[in-house]
């Protein structure tokens, strides 16, 4: 049976996700490191007996809970399915701003959209639609981003030159007249 200290250790390791120093676990449950280490094989046994498909890993002076190798394929399947979720409006906007202004900083994307966009940028990198394009020679040396070859495939383009001209480019009084003024947030960073 999994007793209270084991439950505490388990809870901490579960919530941490990443490896946690054994000493921190010990402090939190009010025990010393040896006690925690002595508990580990017992907890591992208990999990196995109950059929919980997890393993307790000891990595140097750290501990971690992880899934079993055997279940990697089913996990991969389930999580890879995320790729099939259509891009959100926010993601499309970030991509569009990046596509027409690359290389582009996050600050510029946020200036154009008027909202924090860090989460969206990261998820687009994960989807391999955006990639980092080095630091710009601007104050603070900000990271810049550009679209990828995978981005071109996604939108059926052979090259960036095939991006259609922006709406409002001809004869409209919209602020999108191309080329944007040099001091506009829409001006490509040069």
């Amino acid at each position, binding site marked *: 049976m999994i007793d209270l200290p084991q439950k505490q250790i388990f*809870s901490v390791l*579960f*919530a*941490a*996700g*990443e490896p946690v120093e054994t000493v921190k676990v010990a402090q939190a449950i009010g025990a010393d490191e040896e006690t925690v280490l002595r508990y580990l094989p017992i907890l591992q046994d208990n999990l196995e007996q109950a059929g919980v498909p997890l393993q307790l890993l000891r990595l140097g002076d750290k501990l971690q809970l*992880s*899934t079993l190798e055997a279940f*990697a394929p089913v*996990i*991969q399947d389930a*999580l*890879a399915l*995320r*790729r*099939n979720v*259509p*891009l959100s*409006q926010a993601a*499309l*906007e*970030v*991509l*569009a*701003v990046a*596509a*027409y202004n690359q290389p582009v900083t996050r600050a510029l994307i946020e*200036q*154009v*959209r*008027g*909202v924090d966009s860090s989460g969206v940028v990261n998820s687009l990198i*994960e*989807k*391999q*639609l955006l990639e980092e394009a080095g630091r710009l020679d601007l104050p603070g040396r900000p990271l810049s981003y550009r679209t990828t070859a*995978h981005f071109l*495939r*996604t*939108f*059926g*383009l052979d090259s960036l030159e*095939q*991006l*259609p001209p*922006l*709406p*409002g480019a001809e004869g409209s009084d*919209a*602020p*999108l007249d191309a080329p944007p003024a040099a001091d506009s*947030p*829409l001006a490509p960073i040069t």
Partner: protein
Amino acid sequence: MEQLSFRTAEFEGPLDLLLHLIAKHKLDIYDVQISALLEQYMAYIRAAQDANLELASEFLEMASRLVYIKTVSLLPRHEEESRQLKTELQGQLLEYQVCKQVAAGLGERGQRFRRFVRAPEKMEIDTAYRLTHPVKLLCDAYRDAVGRGKRRLPPPSQAFSGIVARRVVSVSSRIVHLLKRLYRSGQASYGSLFETSTDRSELVATFLAVLELVKAKRITVEDGQVRFDRTHHSPDASTMGELRYD
């Protein structure tokens, strides 16, 4: 004037403040007396300004809205509009009250449930996006992004400083001023009453003063001329019915 104990209290917005005032002064939310509410509201705004609290523009908007409702209610033959304006405000107050109650309930629930979850396990997963889209989607998104970003740019702060820092002119002081002036001259053109006013607060106060005087039958306004009615005497503003602006 009554001690303003709520001077440092924080309100989410003008509706929050109004609900507070209604509860505090035991006003009937289903039949709000606009005069009393306006008076309490202005007292708070003044107190906040005295304490150099930064007032969001919405507070001032609400002040002018209350003034407007009161104005309409003073005008003859505008009962229907006045009733409608009050119903609108009442509806908004009731709705906001529900919103506050639900928010409080959520807050309580939020404190009760404290569960932790994990960050995703790090593993090699092909996360490349799989779908394809027409490129038009991008253009649309670009237009949306630019439009919204522009709208969200906040107005410059100096746009508000003038409004907030402005002195508040009391209506009763304008009544006294008007009575004195008309008592001497007997009549004046309507426009001339406003000629010397330099700021908005004084203009509004002067206008309300005219309305009050018309209502009390101290003056008449006709063909752009304001006449003093000499059948009434005592140019003392304190005798005027419901005037308690200060």
